[in-house]
């Protein structure tokens, strides 16, 4: 079941991942062969088998919601790619 070029572009869009023309062609081939390999799982009988999301016998871990001092503003903004005053600067999110 090979992936189509449109499907590759659709997945990239969902993942907000820019791809070059070369990437699209290469991923179309490579992802198709990997997905093909996955087909073996279809033959495994999982009737009435519950899914495992993680292996610990833990559910709904709770802790007290104690207020703590946050990081200093400068510490957090030190890694900002673009900064304006005390804000992270980004391009307009909403259209005019």
């Amino acid at each position: 079941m090979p992936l189509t070029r449109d499907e590759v572009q659709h997945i990239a869009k969902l993942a907000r991942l820019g791809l070059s023309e070369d990437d699209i062609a290469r991923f179309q081939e490579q992802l198709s062969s990997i997905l093909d390999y996955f087909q073996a799982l279809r033959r495994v009988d999982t009737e009435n088998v519950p899914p495992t999301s993680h292996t610990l016998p833990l559910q709904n871990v709770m802790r007290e919601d104690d207020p703590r001092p946050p990081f200093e503003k400068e510490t957090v903004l030190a890694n900002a790619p673009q900064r304006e005053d005390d804000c992270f600067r980004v391009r307009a999110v909403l259209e005019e």
Partner: protein
Amino acid sequence: MPVPEPLYALTVHEAAELLARREVSSLELTRAVLDRIHQVDDRIRAFLTLCEDEALQQAREADGRLARDETSPLMGIPGAIKDVICTKGIRTTCGSRILDNFVPPFDAFVIERLKESGFVMVGKTNMDEFAMGSSGENSAFHPTHNPWDLERVPGGSSAGSAAAVASGEALFALGSDTGGSIRQPACLSGVVGFKPTYGRVSRFGLVAFGSSLDQIGPLTKGVRDAAIVLRCIAGHDPRDSTSAEVDVPEYEQSLVPDLRGLRLGVPREYFPEGMDQGVRDAMEAALRTMEDLGAEVDREVSLPSTPHALAVYYIIAPSEASANLARYDGVKYGFSHTEGQDMWDNMEKTRQFGFGDEVKRRIMLGTYALSAGYYDAYYLKAQKVRTLIRREFDAAFQSHDALVAPVSPTPAFKIGEKVDDPLQMYLSDVFTIPVNIAGLPAISVPCGFPGGLPVGFQVIGKPFDEATVLRVAYAYEQATEWHKRRPPL
């Protein structure tokens, strides 16, 4: 007693004894390790960042604490940290361009623990980008070379950590293991690597890849050192909700030189037709040694779902990764493309230019497996087969104290040999992945050098029974000489 030379070749416990007796200072030890790095790392390339000034400062502080008779097993011991673990004030790249300039404002839990213990951090080690890879070649910066043969890979993703310990550039290192990333490079580089039970070590400050699989653990020159480092970094941490509230034993007490009374299982699915003869012979010899040490070895164990583990893993891990890596959008930290047409264009190009091929491939795979119409067929199906794999391990542990299996199907392969065939590269992890899927502890131990290249076995234990795993590994190690070999550099 004369101080053994060279100092960089010491194990953690040997160095700790010399430090405690004041026969060596941490400053001398740290300088010896830094000199060794300068001597060999242009060939090995284990490090992404060296912290020489900080290391010398930490060594002086450790010497001060030792002078005040403070004791702790890692006081003054130089170690290296995989660059996927956050270190306050020291850049942490995950082997990726997208985090090239990222400086964490906090320490990971394991770094807090190591600092309390007084360790000396010599640097941050190279790795496959975001821990995705089995050779170290997916680092955005440079490959790392196997100390036993510089034309070969050291294994991955904890490539630099394994190569650094093997070549004497650190007395120990931390790595992370999502599908074999501690055990496989340890095996291919001829050192010990220990992945603890999922939940044993806090993941706070470990940059997330596959959150239900990731676990931090030690790479060391021997089993005793692995016990010492694990004791230091294990334990409950409320900042990781999957950190287990289970007591941490004194692991060194479980290190006894015999295996009497233990029943070990050997799963036959780990010895497929056409298996590498060097690996098979080394495994057979190792199993006979374990019998000589008093273990009962049962070669009739079967874990029939083992052949499905690879597919399960390459659905679950990329699915979790595609969600975890959504945070790299170029807004708050890291590489940011700013010249695009609009916000979305910038975000897509940030990720296009910031991530390497393997990371993109896995984001694509995971996004596909989680997308509308495919979730049930891929992600949910994989989670159900995950249950079957775990149940088979549980059943085997009903009548066996631990399981023994090969780590890597082959010794180290050549740099460049598998980079163009992702599926072939994924097959390097075929024996290590089931352990992560089931959340079990497993240690990789060297057991031979066919053709001059190291191979190893893994001991797989019951959940939170790291003590038995260490006992089996230690007894074998002490009965053999492999752990004393060092690469000719």
